[in-house]
């Protein structure tokens, strides 16, 4: 990922900054210009809770080149208490144990490396609560 495109999304990726629509209250992540629910254009910043529940999941056994070292890895759609859904990897566990309904926390992790000499790209991944320290999810 070229660094300007990465840099632009830092608030969402590093701090899980989302936007709450003034019009309808929907929390939108990542933030957008226009609310997909009511077309409102005014948002107030809100931080997502760093926890959620798996809606659906898979284990990727054939990965893009940038993720070969991680393979196989679990990915899931995780819903936070703000009813925001994120597509994230699920780490620090046996990938096949990740199933819908599983409680997870969201932790700051290295997501990808741009080859041998490019930038390092960070963001959040999910960790099953059984593997996480519950204190960290607050």
């Amino acid at each position, binding site marked *: 990922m070229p660094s300007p495109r990465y840099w632009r999304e830092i608030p969402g990726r590093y701090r899980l900054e989302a936007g709450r629509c003034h019009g309808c209250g929907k929390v939108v992540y990542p933030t957008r210009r226009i609310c997909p629910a009511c077309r409102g254009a005014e948002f107030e910043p809100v931080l997502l809770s760093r926890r959620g529940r798996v*809606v659906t999941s898979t*284990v990727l*056994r*054939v990965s*893009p080149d940038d993720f070969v070292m991680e393979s196989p890895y679990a*990915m899931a*759609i995780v819903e936070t208490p703000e009813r925001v859904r*994120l597509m994230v*990897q699920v780490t620090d566990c046996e990938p096949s144990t990740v199933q819908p309904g599983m409680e997870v926390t969201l932790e700051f992790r290295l997501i990808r490396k741009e080859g041998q000499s490019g930038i390092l*790209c960070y963001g959040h991944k999910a960790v099953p609560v059984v593997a996480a320290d519950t204190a960290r999810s607050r």
Partner: protein
Amino acid sequence: MREVAIVAAGMTRFGELWQTSLRDLFVDAATEALNAAGVDRLDAIFVGSMASGQFVGQEHIGPLCADHLGMAGVAAMRVESACASGGMALRAGFAEVASGLSDLVLVAGVEKMNDGADATAVLATAADQETEAYQGVTFPGLYAMIARAHMETYGTTEEELAAVAVKSHRHGALNPKAQFGRVVDLQSVMTSTLVADPLRLLHCSPVTDGAAAVLLCPLRDAKRFTDRPVKLIGSGVATGAMALADRADPAFLDAVQLSAERAYRMAAIGPGDVHVAEVHDCFSIAEICCIEALGLVERGHGRHAAPSGETALGGRVPVNTSGGLKAKGHPVGATGVAQVIEVFEQLRGEAGDRQVADARFGLTQNMGGSGASSVVHILERV
């Protein structure tokens, strides 16, 4: 609006065509269509291609195609909507003729996927780059999540998923242009390599080279080119949330339903009138979700269709008689046009061993990404 007919079709064999370049794939399919109609001039060319720039480094393929067809000068443009590019090109060509802007339009789709590019990475560009691809998801991964959601909601089983692939291969074995000419049994699907749980290799459409082309003209002129034209009576396009995570129900394809509603309304028919359908089975789960969203079966009942034979040749509504994306092959930009060719042949009674008896209405449904775009066309025998 003028009524529009498809009067000729041309299609390369689908497969790993190492000797054939992107431009030659297009020319081979286009030439077959032009020759079938005895045509040596065109008003416009619409070519669907998802990722020629990434697969072979070539953008700007509208003029490339016109030039290599020996028709530099003709209006030509590319249409892109990921794997729905071919179907969207047909939509554009349909509007071009219906509006009266052009009288003779070639709609083609082409993709040269086997040319050294990392196909998994190229296809992943159809996902949301900021929220999906960034995190490392692939298309098998996205559809695997759709499959797992469907299993959670409706109790769909791995065996039911596998039955879709078995049916596709059985149909594809009857199609001389299909990438895979072999049948597979349930056991071999269910024990094939896991790609993205629960999807296995034999649930996935292959990486394919190929091109397909159809010739469109006003219905009133159709008999000049063929004695068996097929009328385009419905066209519906819709979009949905780009990212799978943003869909209310990951097990349901809203855009497919919406595009189908629009096409049915325009054609003034309902799903019960469809005699044959080609749907976007890029993965086995996609066929199950598509036939539900198209109304060919009830929501949640898609899983029973392949095992019961309902969607097989000889069944209530045969789906993907060509072998579908799964067995015929999936050269992404060409797929939408190839689907139309299968239905065109079915309605003309030219489908050989795959022929659906006395088909009058046929439907094609072509989808982009994990379902963010969908285009449905309804064709009628004249």
